[in-house]
């Protein structure tokens, strides 16, 4: 009765803003992330990342577990590169307990973290290629990643969640066979890095799609608290391995690749170059490592550190991973907070996606390289 007899034609064509959900299930293999995009035509007006789909409450769980048990929880944050997670917790707990780690254990920790950095950046390389549309580099990257995971399986028995770096040192020693296999892998991998360059890095189509998008200036990066290759791509030289060297990083020589413009291509390029630097670090560690203990003596089965607080930070594969640990003298940590780099890096998506085209969303999201286990903890 009140409906008009004649409807105007353009009432059906709503040309104002459209809300699209990117996720939580989408083809890019980043995990359960939902980005609510408000789109006007091709241009994004507002982007709201919605996290929390993988929140498991590890900070609360750690309050009822002993320190050794918490190391197992740490594996599950950045599950792609789990060794630095273990390491950062062990560093914080060792600070609390005033525990000295033997030198061989430090070298082993460094080797494992750098191998894990190679594995994580290989995964980034492969999945970023798929995001951009090149399907082959993914399989090459995973062929090499399988070799790294085989090395980890040989050392500690696990491929993804290692629990290898323990309080006071590492879980077990490596054999000469492992060392020779690692050297074999490193020799092979150096040739592969050149191949990856020719496949993606110098490809004009790839450069065309990534060099002009996702620009983040240095001030913007510092204001948003970015870390890792995201920050270094904008030209800011902040690497936890050089800021406050831990494990054996002060004994090896390596460089930290810096980018210039802060575009997606710079972030990608920093990571690819970091793989080469990791190879150098592992080689130097294998050369310099001497025989010795791999675990400190006198680590209690159920440690009860003195009341106090400690903060430790490492350069994880995703950025600056930190742990703030408060102990009240009991068997479990009183409070553990994880300064998760992926969580903080992801926040910049709200600002950086405004005004971009829909086709660039995947490229930008892929270049920030998040892992949802770390975002949600």
């Amino acid at each position, binding site marked *: 009765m009140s409906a008009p007899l004649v409807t105007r034609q353009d009432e059906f064509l709503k040309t104002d803003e459209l809300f699209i959900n990117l996720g939580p299930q989408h083809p890019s293999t980043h995990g359960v992330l939902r980005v609510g995009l408000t789109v006007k035509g091709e241009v994004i007006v507002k982007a709201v990342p919605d996290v929390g789909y993988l929140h498991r409450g590890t900070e609360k769980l750690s309050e009822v577990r002993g320190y050794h048990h918490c190391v197992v929880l740490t594996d599950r944050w950045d599950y792609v590169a789990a060794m630095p997670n273990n390491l950062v917790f062990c560093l914080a707990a060792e600070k609390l307990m005033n525990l000295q780690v033997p030198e061989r254990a430090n070298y082993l920790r460094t080797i494992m973290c750098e191998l894990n950095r190679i594995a994580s950046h290989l995964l980034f390389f492969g999945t970023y290629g798929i995001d951009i549309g*090149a*399907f082959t580099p993914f399989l090459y990257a995973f*062929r090499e990643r399988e*070799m790294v995971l085989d090395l980890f399986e040989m050392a500690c028995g696990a491929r993804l969640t290692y629990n290898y770096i323990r309080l006071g040192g590492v879980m077990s020693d490596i054999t000469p*066979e492992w060392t020779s296999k690692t050297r*074999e892998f490193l020799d092979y991998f150096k040739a592969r890095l050149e191949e990856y360059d020719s496949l993606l890095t110098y490809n004009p189509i790839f450069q065309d799609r990534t060099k002009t998008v996702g620009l983040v200036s240095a001030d913007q990066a510092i204001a948003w608290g970015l870390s890792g290759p995201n920050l270094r791509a904008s030209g800011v030289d902040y690497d936890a391995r050089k800021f406050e060297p831990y494990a054996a990083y002060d004994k090896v020589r390596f460089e930290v690749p810096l980018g210039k413009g802060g575009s997606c291509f710079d972030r990608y390029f920093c990571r690819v170059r970091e793989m080469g630097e990791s190879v150098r670090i592992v080689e130097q560690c294998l050369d310099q490592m001497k025989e010795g203990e791999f675990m400190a003596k006198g680590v209690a089965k159920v440690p009860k550190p003195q009341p106090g607080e400690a903060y430790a930070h490492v350069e994880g594969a995703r950025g600056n991973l930190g742990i703030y640990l408060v102990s009240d003298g009991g068997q479990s940590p009183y409070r553990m907070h994880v300064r998760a780099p992926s969580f903080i890096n992801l926040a910049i998506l709200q600002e950086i996606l405004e005004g971009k085209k829909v086709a660039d969303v995947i490229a930008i999201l892929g270049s920030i390289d998040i892992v949802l286990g770390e975002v949600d903890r």
Partner: protein
Amino acid sequence: MSAPKNPADKHAASNGSSAKVPPAAAVVPPAPAAPAKPAPKPKVEIKEPVFNPAYKGALLTHDRYWPTQRWKAPWSLRSYRRGALALGALLLGAFGLTAAVGELAPWGALLQSAVSGLLSSSFAASGVWILLKVLVVLHIILVAPIFLVWWERKISAHIQSRLGPMTVGGWHGWLQTVADGIKLLFKEDITPIAADRWVHRLAPVIVVIPAILAFAPISFGRELAAADIDVGVLYIFAVAGVSVIGIVMAGWASGNKYSLLGGLRSAAQLVSYELPRSFSIVPVLMFAGSLNLTRIADSQAGYWFGVIPRWYIFYPVVGQISFLIFLIASVAETNRVPFDIPEAESELVAGFHTEFSGMKFSLFFLAEYAYVLLASCLTAAFFMGGGGSPLPWAPWTWIPSWAWFLAKTLGIVFCFLWFRWTFPRFRVDRLMDFNWKFLLPWSFVNIALASIYLLI
């Protein structure tokens, strides 16, 4: 598991079974219900795990799969040597088989004379002959994707350092496509409610039929054209352009706006890239002096200095530019990577063929491979002397013309498949830029160069 377990409960239960209180007589009042001191917990022995010392530090089975040996010394691997031998045997077998069969044109003439001998009226005889030719061409197009899809899967797998289909049909999964085709036949044919039913049914048909029709004037060797049309080239391009309507219909009939936009984008891409494709052929037509495909192929016979064949691809600058532009534009025409925006991204959903399932989807698939084959046949005919042998000497001339045509076509098809798995994807606006600001101007320059060439 429903109620939170309390460790005290467990100990109370075990206490009850191993109670230390001796069974007292009924006279003695029983001990208080809760004992003053909790009974000692039963000692449960926790055994340290023992790992098999044989495994300590060893790499279990994965060592075999490390590619380091294949990288350092490939010929030391038995599988490598066997693969090379198998490839050599295959090529030699193909050579011998094709040389034994010989030219097909005489057999065709024999068949035609048999048909006209059987049937008295020449009208009926020519009718039956045309029907036979149509059936042959149709079967070529319908059977070719069976091989092409298998080949694509194998090539893509080996480029990606994996194996591809291995099981179906026994030897390296050569019947895989047949199995997939049967599966697609059995799939449920879903039409979305918001879709336009008749358009939804017609779209795949309108995409596929021109693909089949376009093969008519192509000569598959010497005198092996189904329809020797004088305006063959024009016919092919005109007919192939009709498919664009089918794609727009597919996008429209899906009933969702993302598919519609994908279909329109694809249509824009296809129509735009038809221009450099056609203009890059103009120098070839100028050199050949005819639009007839057979005559274009024949004008490339002969050899320079007795060694180099007079193929248009070898003409100094013009031939190479024409070939490259034609190849790139053909890749764009067939919606393949690096130009596959309509299939891959298109507003974050699949594209114009999202809502088609079962046989309709397989028709789109068929059309894509038919167009790939068409583009390769055209490249072989225009630029590589379709049917002519590259060298004028003994073993090469034993191979008949249809085998040479097939080999050249498959070589170009290999290029198509190769590009798909090597290059990343163009972004939509860059794709259009590439066409209008690069390919098209260069095709015009090419025509100018060709005319200078002809003057000299």
